[in-house]
């Protein structure tokens, strides 16, 4: 294994262009390496690239750790950060890593899709901003080119006033989500719903959003309808962590509870 330890973004993108695998917190990649599922020949460590840790306003550097997001992030992202792994994992793991790994269960992803975040990527040639629904294309699959590095996440200028994150798992710590969800709602009722672990990529429950956004004061039957629509829009599978049926049920219940939290 060759290991590069650049301190500048230019050197980091150059290493990636030469085929190096980026390594940030290591909470995903190193597990795969330890299990010999991956054997990267050429690795570029990003810990010393200070530009990646920059966080200004709505631009969150890819190297910003969960620990920092837990204490200073927008409400639902901070709530999600608090559920990532454990303190040690939150000290190491980064939001950029979550996005690049692109696990359907990535804890930060329901928030990013609920607020229509964009992914900033850079190569030696230059940068581009990729909308989340163009970036994520499948289970651990993205449209990131081989010579590109994720450098930041761009959130919209203004975020919804009300936001809530929730996650279902077998433990409250060190757990990969069985179902994850973020619901946001603006003061004028516009609602978004980001779902995790219930499809190959993070999803939006667009029909449920549209229905509930048009209701100023949702009644019990509106909430029940919302729950059902979210369940219907999920695309879960059965795997070693849960069943399709359970996930479909749980995601509706969770989304409804989060909406109720936003309505309080």
């Amino acid at each position: 294994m060759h290991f590069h330890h650049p301190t500048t973004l230019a050197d980091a993108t150059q290493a990636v262009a030469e085929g190096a695998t980026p390594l940030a917190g290591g909470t995903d990649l190193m597990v795969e390496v330890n299990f010999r599922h991956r054997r990267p020949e050429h690795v570029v460590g990003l810990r010393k690239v200070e530009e990646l840790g920059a966080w200004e306003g709505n631009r969150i550097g890819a190297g910003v750790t969960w620990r920092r997001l837990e204490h200073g992030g927008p409400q639902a992202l901070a709530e999600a950060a608090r559920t990532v792994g454990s303190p040690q994992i939150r000290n190491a793991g980064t939001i950029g890593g979550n996005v690049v790994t692109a696990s359907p269960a990535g804890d930060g992803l329901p928030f990013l899709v609920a607020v229509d975040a964009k992914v900033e990527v850079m190569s030696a040639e230059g940068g581009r901003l990729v909308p989340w629904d163009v970036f994520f294309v499948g289970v651990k699959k993205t449209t990131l080119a081989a010579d590109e590095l994720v450098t930041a996440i761009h959130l919209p200028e203004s975020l919804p006033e009300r936001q809530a994150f929730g996650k279902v798992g077998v433990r409250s710590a060190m757990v990969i989500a069985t179902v994850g969800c973020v619901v946001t709602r603006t003061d004028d009722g516009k609602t978004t719903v980001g779902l995790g672990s219930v499809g190959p990529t993070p999803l939006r429950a667009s029909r449920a959003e549209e229905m509930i956004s048009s209701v100023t004061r949702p009644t019990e039957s509106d909430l029940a309808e919302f729950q059902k629509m979210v369940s219907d829009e999920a695309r879960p599978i059965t795997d070693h962590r849960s069943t399709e049926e359970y996930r479909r049920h749980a995601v509706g219940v969770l989304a409804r509870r989060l909406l109720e939290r936003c309505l309080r």
Partner: protein
Amino acid sequence: MEVSMTVNGRAVSADVEPRTLLVHFLRENLRLTGTHVGCETGYCGACTVHVDGKAVKSCTMLAVQAEGADVKTIESLASNGNLHPVQEGFWERHGLQCGFCTPGMIMASVALLDENNNPSEDEIRHGIEGNLCRCTGYHNIVRAVEYAGAKMRGEEPPPPDWEGGE
């Protein structure tokens, strides 16, 4: 590949294979075997050390990533034969049985108390959530951390459960 860092206050450098995990570097190159290797997936927390003042799992970090860093292991805690308050708490409140998780559990607890020396029981449990113990059921570990917190605040620790505590 040459790597240099400070470990427990001592400058060390060595020529390592880049794939060497930090925990293996500590144990095998430096012979600091207090840090344990449990799961190698970041799950169990036995390998917890502090890197630049933050608790991390040294089994999912390469030694070369710690280039220039300040690393602290369990061996750094006691000085001149005096236990660190957290070590003393684990001793006084029976916070261990087999001891395998203990170094990681103590390093996680020290990181928690460094930030907040008066944590609630919930905060203690949240603070050590990344460390698995298969012996104690965590109860005495939580008491040990409460003991240490009291000591660090200069207060009398609460009495042990077996002397009429809750």
